[in-house]
């Protein structure tokens, strides 16, 4: 049977629809439509308590935001969080994944241990960590005292609150990164390493020439997801410091939540969200472009 080009194309698009439609339809209905609704809101003032009343503001919200000192402070704090959190969590997650990939006694136990923080909700772990970081009786300052350092007031000190939050976040998400890397590490064939060993490669060379390149799609994925998530850091800040002390750990989503749910300024909250979106989008695009230079797919 002779199949025309059109028929081939039609056949292909049938399959595209078949595979893509459920996901895309749901995405559009439950995610994209509310997103667009919030985009429209950025041009209005809308108080959810008076839901039928919309005041058109044009670009006013964006101008207010540009002059809003709280917004810029929140942006700074968010960026500070990211620069501390991302490198640390990627490194520890990767390191732990490498370790977990070995033949070890009690491997299941160790894997489970690193994943425990991930499956717990923040409200649960945040309280414990406020105790751990307690300036007088917490373990951290106790250990520091053992080596002769007087620890700072951590969550009560504007300079140290964010580092404490970063550390806690790394603790919680290491397991997440580990699990992502682990499933890819599993799929690297044994033989590659053996062949490399025969060629005289040492451990570092193995990591550099086999592990990393084969892992690069996962690294790219994990980095992208982690970046997108860390720009939206919220739960741990809300529970551990509520943005304090004196606004020192106020982050973008905290500003958004305050404006949306406590100040009745949904339009402004939406504006902050979409500016956040733009920033994250740009960062992701840039990352996407660079992937060609270091990510290798089969």
């Amino acid at each position, binding site marked *: 049977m002779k199949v025309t080009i059109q028929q081939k194309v039609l056949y292909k698009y049938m399959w595209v629809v078949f595979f893509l439609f459920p996901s895309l339809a749901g995405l559009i209905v439950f995610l994209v439509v509310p997103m667009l609704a919030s985009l429209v809101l950025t041009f209005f003032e809308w*108080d*959810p*308590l*008076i*839901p039928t009343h919309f005041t058109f503001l044009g670009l006013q919200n964006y101008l207010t935001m540009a002059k809003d000192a709280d917004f810029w402070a929140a942006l700074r704090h968010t960026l500070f969080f990211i620069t501390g959190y991302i490198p640390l969590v990627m490194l520890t997650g990767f390191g732990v994944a490498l370790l977990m990939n070995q033949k070890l006694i009690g491997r299941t136990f160790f894997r489970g241990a690193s994943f425990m923080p991930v499956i717990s909700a923040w409200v649960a772990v945040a*309280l414990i960590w*406020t*105790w751990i970081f*307690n*300036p*007088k*009786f*917490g373990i951290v300052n106790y250990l520091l005292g053992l080596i002769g350092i007087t620890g700072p*007031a951590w*969550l*009560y*000190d*504007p300079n140290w609150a964010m580092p404490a939050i970063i550390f806690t976040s790394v603790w919680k998400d290491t397991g997440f990164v580990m699990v992502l890397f682990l499933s890819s590490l599993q799929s690297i064939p044994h033989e590659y390493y053996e062949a490399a060993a025969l060629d005289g490669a040492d451990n570092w060379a193995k990591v550099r020439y086999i592990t990393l390149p084969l892992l690069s799609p996962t690294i790219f994925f994990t980095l992208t997801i982690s970046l997108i998530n860390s720009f939206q850091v919220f739960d741990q800040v809300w529970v551990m410091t509520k943005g*304090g*002390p*004196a*606004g020192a750990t106020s982050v973008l989503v905290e500003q958004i939540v*305050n404006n949306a*749910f*406590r*100040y*009745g300024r949904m339009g402004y909250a939406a504006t902050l969200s979409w500016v956040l979106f733009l920033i994250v989008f740009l960062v992701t695009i840039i990352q996407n472009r660079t992937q060609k230079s270091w990510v290798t797919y089969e």
Partner: protein
Amino acid sequence: MSTKSMFFRSAALLLAFSILLTACAPAVTPPPVPSSEPPMEGQNVIETAAPEPVEITYYTFSAAPDHLKELNQMIEIFQAKYPNITVKVETAPFNDYFTKLQTIIAGGTAPDVFELNYENFVTYADKGLLLDLSPMLQADTTLNPNVYSERANQAFSYKGMQLGLPATFSTVMLFYNKDLFDKAGLAYPTADWTWQDAVEAGKKLTDPATGVWGLYSGVQFWEFYKKAAQNNCKFFNEDKTQVMINSPECVQALQTMVDFVKTDKVMPSAAEMGGQSDGDMFKAGKLAMDVTGIWMFAAYKDVPFKWDITVEPGMDAKATHFFANAASIFAASKHSQEAYEWVKFFTSDPQMAKIRIDAGWELPALRDPALFQDYLSQTPPSNRQAVIDSLQFAVVPPVIVRQSEMQDGINKLLDQVMLGELTPQQALDQAKLLIEGLLK
């Protein structure tokens, strides 16, 4: 075995386990469903109740989880009296209550009756979300509005409309640990104490060796406006055309509060409390005097030391807190008459009041002295009369429409003062600008 079927298996196992749990666990008694038969001849039925069954929703933050039982008891009594009305309860924790309320209102699914505390009341009242109860109150021959505490009733009237009926009220007192006072050989605080007296006693009570602190009074919005009132300072004038929060009296009031921590050293800083609340510290016997609310009576019931309360110390004048919660009806509720019956019952019925007081579930905002006999005779603390006494000095919180923003802004400035980043004068100067901005 594929991932999916393995998954199915484990989920099925857990599902079965939970179904088992449902069967074995003690069920929470749901409110009884009233019969939908019309009232029988000769039965005493309120004429205004419609004969068809009506369901109203009551949204609350103060019932779950400890007092659902009492609430259900009250609903049973109510539904026996009004067989055609079913009250459906919806709860949320206080911290998320208003977030949810706002969202369900925005979605057009507002509850018929909901609980409001004073600071949110003004916001909801101003936006026209609450039903004016005056017509129904006037038409009601069985309710005497004087049954409510006048102050509480007034708190929920806005621009001449009665937008809620007071359900409960509470005050803030000075709690003190008698054992610690005895050990230091000091006389107990009295109702005429000033803060100077308190600080003097605090200095003798504070002991770094045992980790005991003399007193605690939070440096935050609620405490600040009260201390300010004790020093004859007002944040703004009646019609909000002038903001005087940075006047010398206000600055002095703030300075006094800051001094408790910084110069007098009788009060722990936030860092020194390290995650513990003042309540936790008082319970642990580490706080000799604590300015906190009467809602803590239940929490302190079984502490291993003797304690009592008195009216809070003043400065130039006395000023105390008066907090009240209301039951309000949503303006667009489709069952406003039935909702009114519930609100009326829930806020004024003597049976309801007795259940409350017996269970220690907040104080009804009613005037009947007989009700208070029971309350006053419960111990601890023994000096419950002070609760009533403090009412004569009660001050109303300064409330504007953009209340949350003002509170957050002022709290942040107060934090900065405590951190040493701003002086009280600087902080209050900034506060003035903030409030003026919010009033525009």
